[in-house]
C-alpha cells in the first residue's frame, strides 16, 4: 500500500503535508481504492476554521459518501477547484493532484502528533 514517507496520516485515512505554513490534505491511496470512482468532491469554504476531527469536505463515489475530517485544528486557505470538474484525480493521484484543501494549522506542532507512514501502514499489516 502506497503511503509516502513525507506525509502524516490519521486513522480515518486522511493524509496531511508536513511543510511549513498551509499544508495540503487529501485521502490516502487505501481510501481512494475503497471508495473507487470518485464522482463528486464537496469542497469547504476558504477561510472556514475547523477543529481536529470536524468534517471538512465530502468525497463521493457511486457507492458511498465519505466525510473528510480535519487531521488538525486549522483554517482552510485554499481548495482544489480542479476537482469540481475532475474528481477522478482523487483516485488517479491521491497524494498529488488529488489533494482536496489546504489547512493553516492553529498549532503547527499538531501535525507531528499524527501517525507517520510506518505507523499508518502497520494497520494494514505492512
Amino acid at each position, binding site marked *: 500500500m502506497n503511503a509516502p514517507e513525507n506525509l502524516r496520516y490519521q486513522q480515518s485515512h486522511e493524509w496531511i503535508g508536513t511543510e511549513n505554513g498551509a499544508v495540503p490534505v487529501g485521502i490516502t491511496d487505501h481510501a481512494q481504492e475503497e471508495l473507487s*470512482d470518485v*464522482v*463528486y468532491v464537496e469542497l469547504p469554504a476558504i477561510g472556514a476554521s475547523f477543529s481536529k476531527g470536524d468534517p471538512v469536505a*465530502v468525497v463521493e463515489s*457511486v*457507492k458511498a*459518501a465519505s466525510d473528510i475530517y480535519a487531521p488538525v485544528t486549522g483554517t482552510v486557505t485554499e481548495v482544489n477547484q480542479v476537482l469540481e470538474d475532475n474528481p477522478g484525480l482523487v483516485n488517479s493521484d491521491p497524494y498529488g493532484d488529488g489533494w482536496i484543501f489546504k489547512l493553516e494549522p492553529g498549532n503547527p506542532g499538531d501535525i507531528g502528533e499524527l501517525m507517520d507512514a510506518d505507523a499508518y501502514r502497520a494497520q494494514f499489516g505492512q
Partner: protein
Amino acid sequence: MVDFAGWEMPVQFAGIIPEHRTVREAVGIFDISHMGQLFVEGPGAAQWLDSMLTNDLAALSDGQGQYSLLLNERGGVIDDLIVYRIGAERYFLVVNASLREQDTAWLGEHLTPGIELIDSSDRFAAVAIQGPRSGDVYEAVRSGLQFPPLPPRNGIARDAEETTIICRTGYTGEDGFEIFFPAQDADSTYGTLLDAISHAGGQACGLGARDSLRLEMGYPLNGNDLSPDRTPLEAGLGFFCKLDAAAFIGREALLEQKRNGIPSRLAAIAIIGKSPPPRAHYPVLAEGQRVGELCSGTLSPSLSRGIGLAYLPADLAGIGTQLEIEIRDRRFSAQVVKKPFAKS
C-alpha cells in the same frame, strides 16, 4: 462485502462505473444465488397462482414467463417476481432474496389442497449474465456445460433432468439470461462462465452496478421502491395488474384506488446539471416545500447526472414537474422525466 439478507455479496469488483459500462457495452456476470426459486405444482396450479398474483397466467404458453406481484389484502406489495409456465400444472417462480421466507409463508398460508409449493432455493446457485454480448457467451459455454438452447425473451429452458434452468430475463435493461444450476457445482460452473465472459471482453459485476443499471431503466427494487404500504398502481406497475382477469388478493384494494384516484405516484426524477450523487431518503421539494423523499438514487453512469425515484402526490408526478433535491442542506434543480432514464 456487504451483508445482503444474510448473504455476503460483493458491492463491486473493478468499480461500479466500469462494471456498469461493461454491461451496457459488452457483458457482465452477477452472482444472484441469493434469489429464491419456488415451484408450484398440481392440478389447478394456474388458478391458484392467479388468485395470488396480479398478472394473468392465461397469457402464458409453456416455456414463457411474466413479471407479476404478490400483494397483501390492502393492495400493498409483498414481493415482485417472475413466474414461468413450465407446463399447465407446473410453474417456476423467481423471488427476491430478502422476501423468500415471507413469500413462502404467505403463499403457504393460502395454499389450497392438491397444490404443492416447493422451495428449491437451496438446490440452486444462480448467476445473471447481462449485456449485448450475452448471447455469444451462451453459445461459447453451451455444449461444454450441456445447457439447453437459449430460450426467447422472457422464456425458460431446462436440461432433461432439470438440474439447470435458463431464463431469458434480467434486471439491467440489456439482453441476457439467468442461470440456475446445481449449488454443488457452483465453483466450477462459475469459473467456466467467468472465463467465457472475460473472453468476450466482460467481467464480474457486483451489487453496486446491478443497482445503477436497474435504476437507469427505472426498474423498482423491492424494499426501496416497493413496500407493503404502496400499491403497484402507485408504483407505476398497473400494466402487470390484470384487474379484468381472475380475482387475486389485493385486487379489491386496487379497484377501490382506481375509483377514488391514485393518491401518489412513483416518479422518475433527474437532476439538472452537476450534483453529488442523489441517494435514498434525500428530501424532494416542490416550490420550496418538502413533498417526499427519494426511495432510490444514484449518479447515472450512462447520463453522468443524478437520477432517482420518489413517491410524490399524483399532481406533482407529471413529466416535466420542476422539483428540487436536497443534498446536505443544498438544493439541486430536478424534474420529473419519462422512464427509462437511459436507453439500453
